[in-house]
């Protein structure tokens, strides 16, 4: 489950990349469920805009299925102006009536907040045992404040927090970057501009205070926004890059153990690769 109290911090971007990453292992069945009813972004990011549903989910690749309210709308201008109960009904239907087949991973992309959609999905999935939630934030206090609420929400509904990802952690100017780029990404250097300044210590401090693990920090990258708009996968865009290989390695070396601990390790590893993958894209440009 991918959560954030704040909107526009990269929940869908992370969900899409995680789905692609997990599906790189052909033996695993991955499903991505988008429960952002009013603002579904997943169809566009997965390159499935304009597709319609049958009772099966749409497939990006053979082992990666996607379901979103976006597939049920007849035009991209259609607004879903629904109150809570109707949204809950649809979420229930997504879980019950979509023929997902046998799946190893179900990634749930959520809307911002702590309301109907979140309560419903946790409630409906409680029987199935949720591994936990990945929480996305940006470094500003305004965003962290909402994310703290989200962590409290997780505690309230007894949803384990796998960890926090700090997105848009900084920006490396593509013009004055140099070959120090790899270290630049991991160490905040002077060439990196803080667009969203972490005035209160960013996600790192918050994680320490709340005793949850920080999975990684991801810098802003114009390329990632473009890939999402076009619905491409990072991995297939640079198939020869070592990043793609390491994605596969990680997923292979991962044990088949579905415990929360294993998945948290997986998420951390995926994130490191994800950051690496992005840095490679920088170098290719």
């Amino acid at each position, binding site marked *: 489950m991918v959560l954030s*109290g*704040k*909107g*526009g*911090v990269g929940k*869908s971007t992370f969900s899409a990349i995680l789905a692609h990453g997990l599906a790189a292992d052909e033996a695993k069945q991955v499903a991505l469920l988008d429960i952002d009813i*009013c*603002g579904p*972004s997943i169809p*566009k*990011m997965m390159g499935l805009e304009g597709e319609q549903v049958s009772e099966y989910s749409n497939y990006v690749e053979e082992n990666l299925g996607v379901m979103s309210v976006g597939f049920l709308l007849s035009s*991209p*201008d*259609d*607004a*879903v*102006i*629904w*109150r*809570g*109960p109707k949204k809950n009904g649809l979420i229930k239907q997504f879980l019950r009536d979509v023929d997902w087949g046998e799946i190893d991973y179900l990634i749930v992309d959520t*809307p*911002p*907040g*702590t*309301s*109907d959609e*979140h*309560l419903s999905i946790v409630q409906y999935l409680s029987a199935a045992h949720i591994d936990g939630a990945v929480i996305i934030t*940006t470094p*500003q*206090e*305004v*965003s962290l*404040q*909402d994310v*703290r*609420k*989200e962590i*409290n*929400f997780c505690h*309230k509904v007894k949803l384990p927090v796998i960890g926090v990802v700090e997105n848009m952690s900084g*920006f490396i*100017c*593509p*013009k*004055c970057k140099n070959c120090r780029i790899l270290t630049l990404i991991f160490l905040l250097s*002077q060439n990196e*501009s*803080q*667009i*969203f*300044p972490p*005035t209160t210590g960013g996600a790192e401090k918050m994680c320490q205070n709340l005793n949850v693990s920080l999975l990684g920090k991801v810098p*802003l990258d*114009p390329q990632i*926004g*473009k890939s*999402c*708009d076009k619905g491409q996968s990072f991995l297939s865009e640079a198939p020869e890059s070592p990043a793609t290989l390491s994605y596969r390695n990680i997923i292979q070396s991962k044990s088949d153990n579905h415990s929360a601990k294993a998945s948290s390790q997986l998420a951390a590893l995926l994130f490191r690769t994800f950051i690496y993958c992005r840095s490679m894209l920088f170098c290719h440009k």
Partner: protein
Amino acid sequence: VEEGSAKEKSNLAGVRHILLVLSGKGGVGKSTISTELALSLRHSGKKVGILDVDLSGPSIPCMFRVQDNDVHQCDSGWVPVFVDQDKSISLMSIGFLLEKPDDAVVWRGPKKNALIKQFVADVAWGDLDFLIVDTPPGTSDEHISTVEALRPYKPLGAILVTTPQAVSVGDVRRELTFCKKTGLRVLGIVENMSGFVCPHCSECTNIFSKGGGEELAKHAGVPFLGCVPLDPQLSQSLEEGRDFIQEFPKSSAFPALTHIAQQILDGTSQRSS
């Protein structure tokens, strides 16, 4: 019941114009635009109120650095929180009603709707030139309730905020449909986070691509109010609750923000004349 509706009238009777700030997408800068618009309007000598109806993620108190204030009760209802001594900007948000700032408001629709109705009816705004309503992302409970509750007061219209990417513009198209369906006038579209000027080499990079908002405005036949660039000074001053309009007149986002406020002011003076 009669007494109730009479009271309702009196609480918003002194408010001249009501504006809504909407976006289908989250994190595009609705609260930022609401805040800066309020500051710009104050700069032109107006009295402004902001009603924050984002119940699960209120940002307005933090952006003005007044998150520790409480709401008090008076004869005519709730007293809004004032940002300054002159009482030129007043705020109401669920953030002021929480015991601890990290408390999560885990509410389903009906409870949210009840609070929004109370926010519209029971806040003693006094005399205001503008009431800006900052909303959560989406087209759901909060939005339907706010528009319904405000309908008797004939809101001026809505400002739609987007970032330039297709993913965000897509959600704002849905918001436009929402406005059409609920009969809310669209005052215009603002494209936020449009380009970033590197402070080291002054190269402008379009982090989130460019032009999506303007294209959408053209496509939908609504006014385009302008592009606001990504500006570290702007996000910094919002984090610290400082008055950006007062302190950074030379920054790259300043002209864009004041231009938006000016267009709103022009629109209202045309309307009244």
